[in-house]
């Protein structure tokens, strides 16, 4: 968003909610898990993903790339992260094996959810990404509770869909048409 738009939005919020206390610049309500991507952390509330909470990320648009980088950033900070590959789409040849990053390849959606709950409750992970196994109904409540108990930030990515929705973070997902050129035969 451009600067004038943010300023006008802030003015509108202050007009509508005169007693509201801004979160930025004051004490934070929850600890956050920073993505390690500066521009994204400045946009996210509290500078990262909230611990003990479930964040839902729409697929495509660079979601996997951003969250993979976040996992590595978490490990670089001395903590652990986990990636649950619910639809078994992780390409092993391009998986960056890292000491504190755990990859789980369950056999089914239910197994993926159980694995997520087990790892969340252990309390040893700061970030857990659940890809390709969306929780539904009470499953969401259960996983959120497990994330709260374990103190981890839980991110859920939907399954690969045939629709063409972009990721919720536009700056990371856009692919310019001009960036891809067909190879010229020499």
């Amino acid at each position, binding site marked *: 968003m451009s600067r004038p738009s943010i300023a006008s939005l802030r003015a509108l919020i202050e007009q509508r909610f005169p007693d509201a206390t801004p979160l930025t610049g004051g004490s934070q309500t929850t600890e956050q898990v920073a993505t390690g991507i500066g521009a994204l952390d400045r946009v996210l509330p509290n500078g990262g993903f909230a611990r003990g909470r479930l964040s839902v990320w729409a697929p495509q648009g660079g979601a996997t790339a951003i969250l993979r980088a976040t996992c*590595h950033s978490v490990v670089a900070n001395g*903590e652990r992260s986990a990636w649950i590959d619910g639809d078994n*789409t992780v390409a092993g040849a391009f998986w960056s094996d890292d000491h504190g990053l755990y990859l*789980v*390849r369950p056999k089914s959606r239910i197994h993926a959810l159980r694995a997520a709950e087990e790892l969340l409750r252990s309390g*040893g992970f700061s970030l857990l990404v659940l890809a390709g196994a969306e929780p539904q109904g009470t499953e969401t409540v259960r996983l959120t509770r497990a994330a709260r108990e374990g103190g981890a930030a839980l991110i859920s990515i939907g399954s690969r869909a045939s629709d063409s929705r972009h990721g919720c973070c536009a700056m990371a997902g856009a692919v310019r048409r001009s960036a891809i050129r067909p190879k010229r035969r020499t």
Partner: protein
Amino acid sequence: MSYVCLWSPSWPTGADFPADLVASLLLHAPRVAVGERNLVWGDARGLHGGQLAEHMLRVAGDYGFEDAHAGVAMTPVAAEVAATQSTTQLVVVKLGQDRQFIAPYALHALSPSDELAALLTGLGIETCGALANLDAEAIEVRLGLEGVRLWQRARADDERWLFKLPLRSLPSASVEWVEYGLKDPERLLFVINSLAGTVCTSLIERGERAREMALVFSLGNRTQRTHVIRSSRPSAEQKRWMRLVREALDTITLPDAVMGVTLRVESVTGNGGAQGDLFDRGFASAPAVEDAVIQLTDDQGDVVVMPENSAHPLLEQRTKWMARTSRTSRPTIHDPHLALTLQLLPSPKVVTVDTESRRDHEVPVRYLDGNEWHDIVEAAGPDRVSGGQWSSAYAREYFRCVREDGMMVWLFRGSQQQTKDWFLHGWWD
């Protein structure tokens, strides 16, 4: 001392013998056998028999059997006579004195049959010592096989099959029932739980963790059924092993009643702990993570994995997924860069593709995925890869395509000699 024999005239026998009393006795004696004629045996080999007997008497007293008596001896018959015939609550027969100890007691202490007892009385043989002093040949001729067996017991030569299996170096625990067979699965589980407690306590004391245990059922039809239980990671936790036992028991069907259960450790590993930095935030939670991974592996198999990649030209055949182990060291990536990642379908999916000619090849211009057509605005390729076969120049032609909605997909077509189908292999995200 080898055997401790407990006897009480008031405790129930057979199927009514309290299972929790057996479980409590197992806390002190590694092997317990519930015998006939109100007898309970404890294996004292390698232990201080007198102390073991005192513990077992105290346990019996806690359960309300204050009239229990105990005998400790090298042979079962001497221990039995000491427990059943003596007025003292605890009798310890001196080493090597079993025969002399039995000698003054009346023959009924050896529990002969009524016919044999009457016959011996008629012959004027009233004590065990008198019987033991007779000649073996004479006993065999006059009294037959039963008489010979009684004569052997009178000489403290007891061949009863009590704890005859050789002592193992690895921890084990067992319970046997002589008079009845156990059919109730809940009681069986209760007893196995106490066996697991004994075994795991022994493992902890030895500083070891079991990798594999064997559950041996002695059945009423004189057969044995052995079931091996393996844990994904070595452990000495009773809770973990009992969970594995419960899962195993759900799949086991025993053809007859259970006369005895043995739980023995088959293999162990040392109890080495991980070295790490106390100020490392990850180190403090390492045991919890390890437990969670073990639990996950026990429930779902080897799902926590890491890739082992080869140089195979076909991407879906390049990776072999190996179970992640705690001992495998991996590098820490300190500077992860942001880049689109390739996501692969578990197996390439056949799609319908419309193409147009471009120089000497066909490029995709749109493809059908499900019920929706996707237009392709850019197609980079073909990237031709071999399939490790020498029958054709290449196996696949890959195209990196950008759809109208901005998504990048990976399409390929087999070589003309193999197939003309188009496949969707993956996408970038």
